[in-house]
């Protein structure tokens, strides 16, 4: 089941309620744009997709890099359908075999295959060949002819703070021409994640994406646990309240002993994030977007949640909803309905 993108509505002249451009132009397209009200900045961008003789067709998106964003679908993992022939690397389409690495560590059980970057299991790794620290490329064929644009990118790895990572988008599989080129930099000192949030709505789409990695001083072999990128669902105007609860859970097996001590087996630390939403307007786009996520990801799919894209690593979490939240509706009238709920995302599920 894919995400459902709802149109904003279709009206015929003279029933447009808010003047925009010219009434004749909007009515001819059969659509209405609602981008804000009063003095509030809206940051709306419009992407021109296709032109027809009868007029223009617009993909309308409100974009910001300040509010909560959730990446639920991962075109970085290739196409959704099977039976479509082979991708650029000679592998069957739709099987999650859409990455090609310039180097891979030897394993008698094929345990470091580059396909591992496509799993939700962050512990399952792609590992570079022993000692290969520079000149590493990981190429992704999204298996989508029209390509994808990337406004959110996340990679979990063991790269050092001095690593350089370059993300390239291209329409050709040999990357002889480059349409997108972004230096992602190192991982920072305190975690193992690289995050990229586009400053502006990316307007170009590319089928092929490449990561160029160099990390000459890393004492370990280069490893990547997961890579996801694509277009996020982005909240605008409304957001979660400022009381964000972040919990780290140390998973241990404990043996309380007869010696008044507890002996333990450490199995790792995982994060949990609680976000509270208050008074989301039932009639605005954020609430339906969240419902859309609940229906799509449910409590079974991991999504990338970035509550604060301006300082993304602070609360970023790649996890599942622990449960679909209970909604409390403050219903005053049919069109006056404000929704409260708390949600919890757990990366250990």
């Amino acid at each position, binding site marked *: 089941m894919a995400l459902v993108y709802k149109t904003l509505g279709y009206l015929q002249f003279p029933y447009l309620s808010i003047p925009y451009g010219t009434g004749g132009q909007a009515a001819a397209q059969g659509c209405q744009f609602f981008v804000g009200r009063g003095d509030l900045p809206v940051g709306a961008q419009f992407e021109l997709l296709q032109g027809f003789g009868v007029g223009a067709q617009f993909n309308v998106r409100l974009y910001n890099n300040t509010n909560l964003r959730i990446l639920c679908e991962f075109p970085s993992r290739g196409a959704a359908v*099977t*039976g479509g022939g*082979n991708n650029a690397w*000679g*592998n*069957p389409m739709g099987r999650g*075999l859409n990455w090609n690495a310039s180097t891979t*560590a*030897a*394993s*008698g*059980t*094929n*345990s*470091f*295959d580059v396909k*591992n970057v496509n799993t939700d*299991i962050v*512990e*399952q*790794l792609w590992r570079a060949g022993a000692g290969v620290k520079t000149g590493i490329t990981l190429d992704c064929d999204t298996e989508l002819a029209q390509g994808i644009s990337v406004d959110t990118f996340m990679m979990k790895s063991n790269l050092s703070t001095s690593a350089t990572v370059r993300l390239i988008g291209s329409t050709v599989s040999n990357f002889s021409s480059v349409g997108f080129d972004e230096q992602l930099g190192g991982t920072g000192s305190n975690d193992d994640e690289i995050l990229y949030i586009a400053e502006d709505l990316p307007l170009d789409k590319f089928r092929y994406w490449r990561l160029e990695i160099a990390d000459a001083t890393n004492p370990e072999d280069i490893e990547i646990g997961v890579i996801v990128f694509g277009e996020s669902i982005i909240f605008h105007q409304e957001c979660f309240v400022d009381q964000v609860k972040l919990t780290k859970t140390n998973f*241990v*097996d*404990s*043996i*309380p*002993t*007869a*010696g*008044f*001590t*507890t*002996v*333990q*087996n*450490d*199995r*790792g630390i995982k994060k949990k994030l609680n976000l509270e939403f208050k008074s989301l307007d039932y009639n605005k786009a954020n609430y339906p977007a969240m419902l859309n996520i609940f229906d799509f990801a449910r409590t079974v799919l991991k999504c990338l949640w970035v509550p604060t894209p301006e300082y993304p690593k602070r609360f970023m979490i790649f996890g599942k909803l622990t449960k679909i939240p209970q909604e409390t509706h403050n219903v005053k009238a049919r069109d006056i309905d404000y929704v409260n709920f708390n949600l919890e995302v757990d990366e250990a599920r």
Partner: protein
Amino acid sequence: MSNSDRKQYLNITTLDQDSLDQMHDNLVTKLGLVIEIEAPPFEEVALPFTIISPGLVQFTKVGHGLETGNTVTASSSTSPAMDGDHSITSFTDDTFQLNTGGTPAAGTADCLSLITIYASDENIYVGDTFYKALLNFPTVKRIMGEWLSPTLEFSTVSISLSNVDGSLNKFLPGGINYGGWFQRSVKIRMGLRDVASTYTTIFSGSITDIGGVGRTIKSIDMVARDDFDKVNVSFPSNTITTTAYPDIEDSIEGELKPVIYGDWTTNLDEKTGASIPCLPTNGANAGVLAGTTNLDLLLSDNANKSFDIASVTLVRSDTVFLFNSADVTSVSANNNDFQLKQEFSGGVTLIDGVKYIYKSGDKFLCKMVGKDLGGVFDDDNIVSQAEDIILTHSSLTGADLDASWATYKAKSAPAQSAIAGIKSRVYVKEPTKVITYVLSMFEQVRLEAFLDRNLKLKITSLHFEDFPDPIPFAVENWDIEDKQFKPKVDVRNNFNVAQGLFNLLPGTEENNNKTPRYRNQATIDQNKGKTIAQGIVFPNLYVRADVINQTIEILRLASSYFEIINSTQTWRSLLLDIGDFVSLNVEIGATVFSGAPAMIRQIGYSPKGRKLVLKLWSFQMLPYPGYNPGHDGIVGGYNATITEEV
């Protein structure tokens, strides 16, 4: 500020007692449990292939399920250059390409790709292998059987692999790789973190036909039994058939050919003078019944060292007759069958004044020496005989036996424990489990066998002089899980009077001899005159002095007051093994043990907390060389006074 490493578990790369102790100082470790399950393979016979380019061939098989990285073992009668292991370089849903290296011509090949499921209770790399979180482990146990009740308990493990996502459907009925699961191997290993060299196999077995493999809507369930199921086989296994012996009598057809070891020329039935039965194998032959044809007689399935032609005895209606050795003929080179001349085939032996003619129901006995073990040890050596039984009648090999076999085979002192000098013999005709029989042999000389942590069959002893001093591993309160230290009296193995019954003779199927009754008077006095008597059976021993020695030593053990302690201990005890001793320094409520020796009888590996579930045999009240408890009320042990009843 201290700069000591308090998280050694993240850096240590060897797993020994020192490293476990270090980690225990900080009360934390990181131990992993992983499982490898052999799944039904991809297997195709005479699969056509085409040549894509030199060294690259393509097979077409709809829904083959293989992927890049899989290895295919190919063999081709039409194109030998295909033979060998080749990796898949690319594939589609219906084709796969192999890099053959050589340049085969197009043809057909038999293809086999082994598939192993790597799983764990967490997502973890061990070495260069990734184990996916697919199951919760059960407790895996290894057990030494009850003393004086020789059984080896086998570990059985029930595994439930998560299949909620259907990723294992290909191995189930209707799936691409569905095939037989029985006898597929299962290995469970435990070790430190991702350090492959620290992982040891705590279970190695195969999926059984009992329980086997099943499925639920969210799992594949399977039952595996450890590899030592191989010794859970019966012997003898060869039967007397009409195919091999067309003139066999109905009453003998289907009987098993006996297995014989040791010296059967001495300490025999006084009445018959011989004890090894000889089975007539042509008793229904008309010539035999007419006395014109020699009677064929079979001793054993195995070849024997010698056969005494002057010892062949007839038992007819409780009357015993000795055959003239001149009538014993055609003795086989293996000394396991011969012929007997009759009245009209040249026989001279008179039975009640008449030359002998076979009658159905006649019984024959003889003296002989069983299988020639051909080694440096005596054919009478009980450990050598046990070893040969295992290697001959089960699928174990010498590599499955621990070095302790050689040690105990050669043990020559003190006298009561000198295995090399204790004489044993074996006659088995009824179906008997190999391991049960071997454990029974060992019990008679105070040895026990168990599967050690290297999954080899190992021998340990209950010889006082073998008990360790000092004991290197001390168990303290903080090694024991709260509320999981439970002592109880070992009622079964506490007795103060014993008598040995020995020398089981196949002719009579009874133990032919008894020792005097022996008693530990101090124990009896301690129990206000209460005697607890036990008969101890030594069917394989036939030398009186040997049996008396063993009876006295067993009584010294059993009259000392044993306790069994069920204890759950932390992972600091991980490297302990069955048969190891620990020194109990435990004071929990009313249970006080101060330096008390205890022998481990059972080990279980519990996945929750990576803890050890142990069954200990406390020797708190059992003095042995180097251990003198110093408690009041010591009545048993190596220096206990055992007296013969008069």
